[in-house]
């Protein structure tokens, strides 16, 4: 499968990454190579094999339903570019 310029720009947009025309051309080639390698993996017959999403042979650890965290709003907004009254402040987003 060949990745074209439009797909590169679509992915870049979804990931909120700005790419120059020159970068897009490079990425086209690189992403195409990666996908070709993945296509090679497709040659292995995996029917009946569960997809492996983790290398650990255990299942999820769980927490009790107890309030053990929170209560430090100043810390939460400390690194924000802009803040007011313990809120994060961002450019207006409204529908």
């Amino acid at each position, binding site marked *: 499968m060949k990745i074209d310029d439009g797909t590169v720009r*679509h992915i870049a*947009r*979804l990931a*909120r990454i700005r790419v120059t025309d020159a970068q897009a051309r490079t990425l086209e080639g690189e992403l195409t190579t990666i996908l070709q390698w993945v296509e090679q993996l497709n040659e292995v017959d995996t029917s009946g094999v569960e*997809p492996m*999403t*983790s290398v*650990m042979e*255990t*299942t*999820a*650890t*769980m*927490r*009790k*339903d*107890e*309030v*053990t*965290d*929170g*209560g430090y*709003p100043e810390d*939460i*907004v400390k690194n924000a570019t*802009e803040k*007011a*009254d*313990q*809120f*994060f*402040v*961002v*450019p*207006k*987003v*409204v*529908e």
Partner: protein
Amino acid sequence: MANSAASSNLIKSETGDWELVIGLEVHAQVTSKAKLFSGAATKFGAEPNSQVSLVDAAMPGMLPVINKECLAQAVRTGLGLKAQVNLRSVFDRKNYFYPDLPQGYQISQFSQPIVGEGEVVLNMEGGETVRIGIERLHLEQDAGKSLHDQDPKSSYVDLNRSGVALMEIVSNPDIRSARQAQAYVTKIRSILRYLGTCDGNMEEGSLRADVNVSMRRPGAELGTRTEIKNINSIRFIGQAIEYESRRQIEVLEGGGEITQETRLFDTKTGQTRPMRSKEEAHDYRYFPDPDLLPVELSREFVDRLAEDLPELPDQKTDRFMADWGLDSYDVELLVAEKERADYFEEMVGGGAAPKQAANWLLNQHLGRVNKEGVAFEDAPVTAAANISILKMVDEGTISGKIAKELYDLVWETGDDPAKLVEERGLRQVTDTVAIEKVVDEIIAANPKQAGQVKAKPQTLGWFVGQVMQKTSGKANPQAVNAILREKLEIAED
């Protein structure tokens, strides 16, 4: 087969009938003390960003750990929806950017949800039963909240809600009218509240719905749908569907095509409009969240939760109908809220006749509760007081008309009904001599009407009204009728 084109639900038009097809996604906030993957609190209305852990704010290096109670709540809900519970489920990342989503993805469940197919039964007005299939229920994180009215150029973001557990309940496209959609959400809300898995508070956003609407000719393939996002009242769900179905019919009959898009319902205008953002965001690129291992539940865990389930609305409905022969729609209304059902059972347990108690509760009591806009449990008229009122009607101590006045007096004073009847002289006059005296007076005062009534027996009602007025509604209506007929020489009809 659920609900195929019942002709009553079709929308008539000059070009022929249209069938409305609706599917709903209900987002219900899970009742839990802490969030789905962190130990921060979930309480509504706290100071901004005061219930946020570093996990919820998506600080680098933080790892989510699942709250077991949220899993239990999802399983209980699945059992309540008569759905299949999946012992193994997987959390995925749903990727999109929005300022109130600090992670840049929502942790949700995609291909392996915790609950599979189920069913909800609706008892509609007029005795019709409608079955709505549930496709799935999955757990996911809620996003934070953006406030847009604080500043002309900026939005303010509060992450208190970020990471709170949500259940998304997805229906099949089995719903065929706005009324059914409303009944469906009402029923889901009722089941959740009985189970205690969601408080159902729609004003606070604990329960909200995305509504998928499309139109087709009866029996034809499904049409292109639009999705109306985030409606938080049952009334608005009805309005949004009514508007959107009319809009789609207009487009289709004008020779146009429906664009698959996300729309918003404007509560001020009662209209829907397309969201401005481009739907590129619909490319969510789901993949299993590498921070979380698959959830494995034991059969014993699920069985234990099943044993502890409370009696649910449908079981209550069956019991009320079997034990007391009540109408299915009345029962649906009675059991919709647990407090209401308990109140009704208290009335019947205290000796009120079931049918009479149901009518009285649904019309008189609920009517006043709704009119006053108070919570059901805050109504000042107790079940015991209502039992006493109905008993006095039954024994002929007071008339039906006086019963309603007495009810209002109890509401206002909080006094004992029997005491009020004595104090205010509300006792019904069954004494025929007293009634005869009033009847004689009225006939004497209205010779013209008395002369005509023989030819027109239907005007007898006017005389009954006069007598009731004169006796302040305290005369026994049967006695009044009999005496009037006798004096005016009108045969029993």
